[in-house]
């Protein structure tokens, strides 16, 4: 379990999150959605221990405030939105950075496996900076995968915390990355992903939390949460939710006309 209890985050005078409760279970993909500035990324960063906050974050039964960096790293991998790289590392070297140096053969094999999983095996010895933005993001995902794949002693589920994992990817690789997330969850791991694309969320998430202005607006399965009213209220524009017939997956269409509140703000 990954639980956040009464998380409040304030930067100087602005309150970003107001007493947010959030729970994610292993075996599932849990998505956090919401408009820009609603606090999605801040909630994720509070749960990774990167943002000082009030309230508790409990990872696999242990308060993360009491955990050392290496204990956290053994139980969760984090994919940030933007990662900069100093020095000309190659792609395979970047993937290896997250790993501990065991026998080098094991580390190399694990890193190559992770690169192949994101279809970048053929770029292993290219310079990271030569890759396109989307390829760099997939290389970073490979680094995080290698980290959570690396064998550890305790059997607790390990977590992937992904901040907009498909942000700069084409549609094919969006599906590939979400497939990776889902199969990781199906194999017993936990996945928490901050998402922008509501339709990908509907396709891949088992649970969805909608944030709006620093509070939780709705929590539940995609079918429960992704409704006309909730989404229109959260995003401040009129959205229409339909269902794909056979599996009953919701999909979201923007309404052509702007909502009245937004029109007022614009004028």
């Amino acid at each position, binding site marked *: 379990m990954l639980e956040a209890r009464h998380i409040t985050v304030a930067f100087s005078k602005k309150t970003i999150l107001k007493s947010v409760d959030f729970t994610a279970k292993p075996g599932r993909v849990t998505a956090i959605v919401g408009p820009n500035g609603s606090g999605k990324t801040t909630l994720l960063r509070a749960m990774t221990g990167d943002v000082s906050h009030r309230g508790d974050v409990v990872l696999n039964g242990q308060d993360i405030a009491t955990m050392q960096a290496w204990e956290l790293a053994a139980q969760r991998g984090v994919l940030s939105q933007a990662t900069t790289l*100093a020095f*000309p590392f*190659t792609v395979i070297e970047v993937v290896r950075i997250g790993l501990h140096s065991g026998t080098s053969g094991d580390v190399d094999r694990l890193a190559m496996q992770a690169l192949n999983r994101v279809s970048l095996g053929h770029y*292993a010895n290219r310079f990271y900076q030569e890759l396109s933005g989307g390829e760099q993001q997939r290389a970073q995902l490979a680094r995080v995968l290698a980290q959570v794949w690396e064998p550890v002693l305790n059997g607790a589920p390990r977590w992937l915390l992904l901040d907009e994992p498909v942000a700069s990817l084409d549609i094919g690789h969006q599906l590939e990355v979400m497939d990776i997330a889902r199969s990781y969850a199906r194999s017993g791991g936990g996945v928490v992903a901050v998402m922008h694309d509501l339709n990908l969320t509907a396709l891949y998430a088992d649970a969805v939390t909608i944030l709006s202005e620093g509070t939780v607006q709705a929590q539940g399965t995609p079918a429960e949460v992704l409704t006309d009213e909730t989404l229109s209220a959260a995003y401040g524009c009129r959205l229409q939710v339909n269902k794909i017939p056979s599996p009953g997956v919701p999909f979201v269409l923007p309404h052509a006309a702007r909502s009245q509140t937004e029109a007022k703000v614009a004028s």
Partner: protein
Amino acid sequence: MLAVSDISPPVDRSQTARAAHLWLALLLFSVSVACLAVGASGTSLWGAIGKLVTGKALTQMERVVLWDIRAPRLIVGICVGASLAVSGAVMQGLFRNPLADPGLVGVSAGAGLGAIIAIVLGSFMPVWLLTMTGNYLVPFAAFLGGWGSTLILYRMATRGGRTSVATMLLAGIALGALAGAVSGVLVYMADDSQLRDLTFWGLGSLAGATWTKAFVATPIILFALLAAFTLGRGLNGLALGEATAHHIGIRVQRMKNTAILIVAAATGAAVSVSGGIGFIGIVVPHLLRLWTGPDHRALLINSALLGPSLLLIADVISRVIIAPAELPIGIVTAVLGAPVFLWILLRRRGMVDL
């Protein structure tokens, strides 16, 4: 954005980096032997080295030159070269910028100021204090100066437990200028013999190497080097940013504190025995990154091997080029290092585009 298109895709460099340990150790050994043999003392000592190897007795003169002059110089040279190169590599990893260097953030300048204060104002000190400190006065003052400037720098650049690299670099420039200005004032107060010492501090030289200095500097530098070798994984993580370093299990703030202490100790000790020698700290890690890649686990060890080799080569050149006089080694490293540095800048402009 990045001018890397002219770089051909390398093969996996981790093997090369490990093989480099051996090659660089061999290079250091050969250069060390040459360094003992070659010099300005009338004759070259290859014969004496041959006698050492075969176990024959040395002449009195050979023993004095080899044991009292060249051996301490060799040991100080190895220590200083290793500290300069490893300090440079650690600083660059810490600042995530291949141009960072202890010389750049005022650590060397602070150490130099400490030394100059001790040289110029030392004569005003109470006699009991002078007799107590003896030969250790100047090295100790340099060490304190380097350490002090690092601590001031750190206080200025750190807020809420996090270090801003930009503030640290800018504060380092200001500190360097301040140390330079104070040193300039002190130079006017110096007498002739002190002025000669000050020139030595400004340009750097291994000529003053004695067993005393070797015994003062070697333990500090060895300890700093061993501590630096534990930073490899942490500095690799830091290359991906502080947040990602934390995500892969690095205690970032503690690692940065350790790195700063290591740099202060190694640079302070190096400057105390040799003055300010430039370019080793920038050129050595650069060359190694081009050859074996930026993985700090290999880079730090290889820097500790290549740094001394380059410094000793520069030292041999400085001894023979205008023999029987000798050039300050800082001039030689600048003449050799500055063009290499500019060439790297031209070829790999993308690398410093951070």
